[in-house]
């Protein structure tokens, strides 16, 4: 065999891509004394459905819920690490971390990985210490803000404009002598969430299968018709006053 001298040739390397995109959509809406955080349960890669039930909305404490969307492996690992930090906080201070502190913790944890980011969009929802409903949204490297509503993930470009119109009343002029309400009632918010996901399921192939809606109620607030809803179960574990519920529904599977 003849040797062909290739001077100083570096070995050929095909770059390994450590990321993937697993579809799905999440959204959260804050009310005056409640917060609603929802996500579909389909997990996909390309045109393949990996599973019809992979949760991406997670209970952190009795007053905080985290929804993650993007690369599922990063999302699960991130939630695991946030929960570990919250457990340490609980052991150190004998109480659950306040929502705004969780939000800052998440920003710090995300930014710590600025140069190898968690490829995940996070939305944190829950009840603030003053009893108001809150939503915090994050980008993958930790930029965050408190908002009244936010959609993220595959169908965010379909859902967010709908929420802008229905929650912030963008492009709507109030009838003469009236103003738009600052906060919507819970039953109205739940209808908007369900409509958002059924519509996203119709128009986006990566959204569907199942819907999980978490509802967090502030201390001392009434059920506001929540008990009449089908598929509801309560998740409250402490007697701090805040109550947490989840509503599970089906979405189209095609």
């Amino acid at each position, binding site marked *: 065999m003849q040797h062909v001298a290739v001077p100083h040739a570096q070995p050929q390397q095909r770059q*390994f891509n450590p990321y*993937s995109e697993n579809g799905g959509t999440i959204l959260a809406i804050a009310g005056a004394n409640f917060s609603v955080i929802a996500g579909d349960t389909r997990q996909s890669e390309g045109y393949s459905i990996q599973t019809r039930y992979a949760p991406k909305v997670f209970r952190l404490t009795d007053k905080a819920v985290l929804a993650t969307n993007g690369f599922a492996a990063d999302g699960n690992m991130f939630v695991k690490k946030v929960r570990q930090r919250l457990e340490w906080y609980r052991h150190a201070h004998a109480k659950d971390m306040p929502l705004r502190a969780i939000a800052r913790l998440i920003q710090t944890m995300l930014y710590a990985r600025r140069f190898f980011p968690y490829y995940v969009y996070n939305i944190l929802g829950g009840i603030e210490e003053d009893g108001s409903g809150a939503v915090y949204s994050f980008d993958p490297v930790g930029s965050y803000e408190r908002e009244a509503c936010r959609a993220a993930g595959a169908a965010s470009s379909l859902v967010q404009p709908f929420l802008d119109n229905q929650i912030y009343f963008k492009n709507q002029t109030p009838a003469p002598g009236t103003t738009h309400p600052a906060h919507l009632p819970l039953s109205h918010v739940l209808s908007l969430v369900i409509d958002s996901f059924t519509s996203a399921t119709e128009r986006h192939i990566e959204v569907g299968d199942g819907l999980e809606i978490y509802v967090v109620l502030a201390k001392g607030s009434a059920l506001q018709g929540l008990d009449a809803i089908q598929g509801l179960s309560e998740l409250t574990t402490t007697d701090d006053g805040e109550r947490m519920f989840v509503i599970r529904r089906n979405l189209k599977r095609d």
Partner: protein
Amino acid sequence: MDHFPLSWGRPRNDAVDAYGTFPIQQRPNHGQDTFSSGIQHTQQPIVTGTSVLAIKFKDGIMMAADNLASYGSLARFRDIKRLHAVGEHTVIGAGGDMGDFQYIQSIMDELMIDEFAAQDGHALGPAEVHNYLSELMYARRSKMDPLWNAILVGGFKDGQRFLAFVDLLGTTYSASTLATGYGAHIAQPLLRRAVEGREDTLDAAEAEKIIEQSMQVLFYRDARSLDKYQIATITAEGVKISESRKLETSWSFAEGIRGYGAQTQ
């Protein structure tokens, strides 16, 4: 091999070319660290296994994989075992790089020995094995040095069935039917149609038939597959991995195909 010491990289002391008689800009390969290629992180799969299939049934989990390890398009090793028992309650089955999988097997064997040696009255079940593997796979992908596999973990412990997936990215999920590689495209729809909604009524014989038919379709359609395969059954009785068996196939339909081979008419 470059036999010129001065081309090996930056001299480590002045004993080498103390007076700089060999100007840096004239050295071949200057500016490059000769040793940078010493650590190879990223790779590509070399000797590969194809699909693994698994379904839930009434009494537990059934999993199947063929016995082929390919070298590109060459059917290189025809008696490779791609299903591996981990302890008394779990089976793992892998597609992807078989070298990496055999390394994973050795890690799992070692883990089970360590757990046994503890003699604490606890045994690792399929859920623990799957979580261990997902942490391992995610840690390796985060080092940009992945174990190039897609793995199914099936098991039965404390009256609970368990079936889940983990791959080289650390992605995990669970469902009543799972398939890796080509099987995710070809066999998964067949498995879903046969199993979904009937997980609690299918008996072992029916489950075996579903698996067998899917393996047959895969052998017809997947050019990197083999008609020799094994089935693992995990139930309350424990783990059973069958001997290699042969698929029944019929190629008589090929006679009816016109337009490809040499035909007289």
